[in-house]
């Protein structure tokens, strides 16, 4: 039901042409605030938030349904950063006061969040040197973060900082929830190849208190893992939606386009690659669904399942978008055709929070080899 509603709404209000218009207009926000307000009205912004805090309580499977549909239409919105990463951080690791303040504001669509974790071009949450020094009763934050998705428009930032230990220690990481719009925080928008926006963020001497800590001081790695797991699974769902749509567009094209006096879909060279991809897409769908279910059933142990889903969906979505371009031939590399937009978005989604190689290695390590 949620699926049909989402498909109907997005098809009407946020088709790929809407995304294209945002890109061509170089919209500063990178998304439509009116559309986001409508999504919030329908309960999407608070999709995983408990009903007691103004959310719709659909859990991660529900979030996955929405992300998959947005992946199909390439809908740009603060959904991942705010409704998945932000809401997970506050709901799973926040204090009662955090939840009462932030969860209703997330659910109503009024407050936008962003997660600041990486400090280099390749995702690596084990490498955190952003500094949080004790000062009186609080901390002083200083450091730089890269590729903070939606960082340029966020009202709140969740920053992974180091309160003790060395650069690569898992111990000593603490998560802070801070206002983004303060003089100590400078944000440099970094338009990405997928025409979504992210920001490099520099923080210089921002004073915060113990109330701004999410979870336990020094034990933030575990919370970070939980938040990232949710983000990875939902990104997997988004890539699954993109892969399915781009594959269906390509299959239709194979049935229409003629060369050598025949439909090109009759050529075995293309048929076998399509059949292989169709099989892989089934595998991807199963993995993504499993990871979302795992988050709903036992959030704390879902991390590796989410990694497997992110790896599989990244691989398959990349294959799907690459094949889409190749099978479309010349028009596949034109800006006018949508397949290139999917190719670019999937590339960034794959880089975000770890590509397939990162997650395959993470799985192997967890499995004892």
């Amino acid at each position, binding site marked *: 039901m949620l699926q049909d509603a989402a498909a109907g709404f997005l098809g009407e209000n946020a088709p790929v042409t809407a995304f294209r218009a945002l890109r061509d207009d170089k919209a500063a926000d990178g998304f439509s605030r009116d559309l986001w307000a409508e999504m919030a009205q329908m309960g999407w912004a608070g999709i995983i938030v408990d009903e007691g805090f103004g959310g719709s309580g659909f859990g991660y499977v529900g979030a996955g349904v929405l992300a998959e549909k947005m992946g199909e239409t390439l809908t740009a919105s603060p959904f991942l950063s705010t409704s998945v990463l932000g809401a997970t951080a506050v709901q799973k690791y926040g204090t009662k006061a955090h939840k009462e303040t932030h969860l209703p504001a997330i659910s109503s669509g009024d407050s936008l969040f962003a997660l600041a974790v990486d400090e280099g071009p390749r995702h690596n949450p084990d490498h955190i040197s952003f500094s949080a020094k004790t000062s009186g009763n609080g901390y002083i934050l200083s450091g730089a973060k890269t590729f903070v998705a939606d960082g340029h428009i966020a009202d709140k930032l969740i920053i992974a900082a180091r309160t003790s230990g060395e650069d690569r220690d898992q111990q000593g990481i603490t998560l802070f929830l801070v206002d983004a719009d303060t003089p100590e925080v400078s944000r440099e928008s970094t338009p990405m190849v997928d025409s979504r926006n992210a920001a490099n963020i520099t923080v210089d001497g921002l004073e915060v208190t113990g109330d701004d800590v999410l979870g336990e001081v020094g034990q933030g790695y575990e919370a970070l893992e939980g938040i990232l797991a949710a983000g990875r699974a939902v990104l997997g769902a988004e890539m699954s939606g993109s892969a399915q749509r781009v594959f269906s567009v390509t299959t239709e094209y194979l049935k229409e386009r003629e060369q050598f006096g025949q*439909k090109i879909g009759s050529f075995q060279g293309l048929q076998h690659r399509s059949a292989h991809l169709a099989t892989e897409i089934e595998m991807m769908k199963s993995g993504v669904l499993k990871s979302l279910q795992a988050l709903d059933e036992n959030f704390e142990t879902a991390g590796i399942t989410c990694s497997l889903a992110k790896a599989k969906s990244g691989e398959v979505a990349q294959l799907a978008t690459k094949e889409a371009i190749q099978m479309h031939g010349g028009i596949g590399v034109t800006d006018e055709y949508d397949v290139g937009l999917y190719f670019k978005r999937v590339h960034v989604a794959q880089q975000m929070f770890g590509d397939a190689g990162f997650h395959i290695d993470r799985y192997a390590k967890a499995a004892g*080899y």
Partner: protein
Amino acid sequence: MTDLEKFRAETRAWLADKCPEEMRDGDITAENQCWGGRQWEFQSEAQKLWFERALDKGYTVPTWPKEYGGAGLSVEEGKILDEERLAINARKPLSNFGISMLGPALLAYGTHEQKDQHLNAIANGEIRWCQGYSEPGAGSDLASLKTKCEDMGDHWLINGQKIWTSNADISDWIFCLVRTDFDAPKHRGITFILMDMASEGISVKPIVLISGHSPFCETFFDNVKVPKIYGEGNPSVVGEINRGWDVAKALLVHERGMLGTMSPLRGTSGPESLGRHAVEHIGTDQDGRLADPALRQRIAQAELDNWAYNLTVERLTDEANAGNGLGAKSSMLKYAASELTKRGTELRMDVGGTDAASIGEEGIEYGSLANAWLYNRAYSILGGTTEVQLNIISKRVLELPSA
């Protein structure tokens, strides 16, 4: 408690009580499974006991009707039995082509009398069946088969040759595709017929494979007389004469379903992780990781694909049970399973290095890793090659145009 929950609890208790410890090794391979048949000798007391206890309960063929030797379980109950059986790593008490292939075809196309005779004999392990489909000139293009079946009034007369008849040398009966009309379009002149392998004129010659072993045979038919009926209402032909292709097609879906629901990375060395198996053989580096990063990556990729495959079997089976069956998607599972199965033994051979490639004075031992690795090359050929599965997916699932 709902009925299904009650059934699950009862089933769990029954399995705990009745399945011998030795049958809980999760290791169901061609070498150690219970095949049944007139020539069958149980490999252990435990195997015999497990078979007899299951038979008593109708659990050799749990979802078949009771009158034909089953337990009459619903699809949901059958699934619960499977889940509970796998939860304790128990083997199936009996598995063979009669259960997985002929049975479903007879249930769909057979007369009551045909089912009564053949299904009961399959269920109680009395008759082992083999499949006579492929011919030297009819492999992937199966419908061009030429084994001739002539109407001689009171009997059929069969002449021709089948190939890749698995275990024909130790099977009791054969279900066979034969040509009854040479003038009709090729799919319309084929008949599905059942015959006793002891019939005069049938001879069998094992085919030695690259492993040095021989699960496959050539089967020759030289003026074989097959009765038209085995009893009242019990003809030797299943379905209509000249319409055997319909039966065969339905049965091929079952074959692919069966081949497509294997556990590809299990089997030759038990259910443990391939990665940890590799650590035992190769050792670790200073970070405690498998000391061969390239192999590590390949193994992890295979385990990832295996994970997604197992979930897909589960998901598609659920969808099939809820809707209109698996249909041509069984080709996706067959394709994925056979390619993964090959990868699994390739990786184990690579982990084993020259140790695994060393075969000893007696040649490649039956049941060894090298044997499995060599035999597994056949998985993407038998039951329709990988390329045929991809053709089917293109045409039937994606509905891409024909040339």
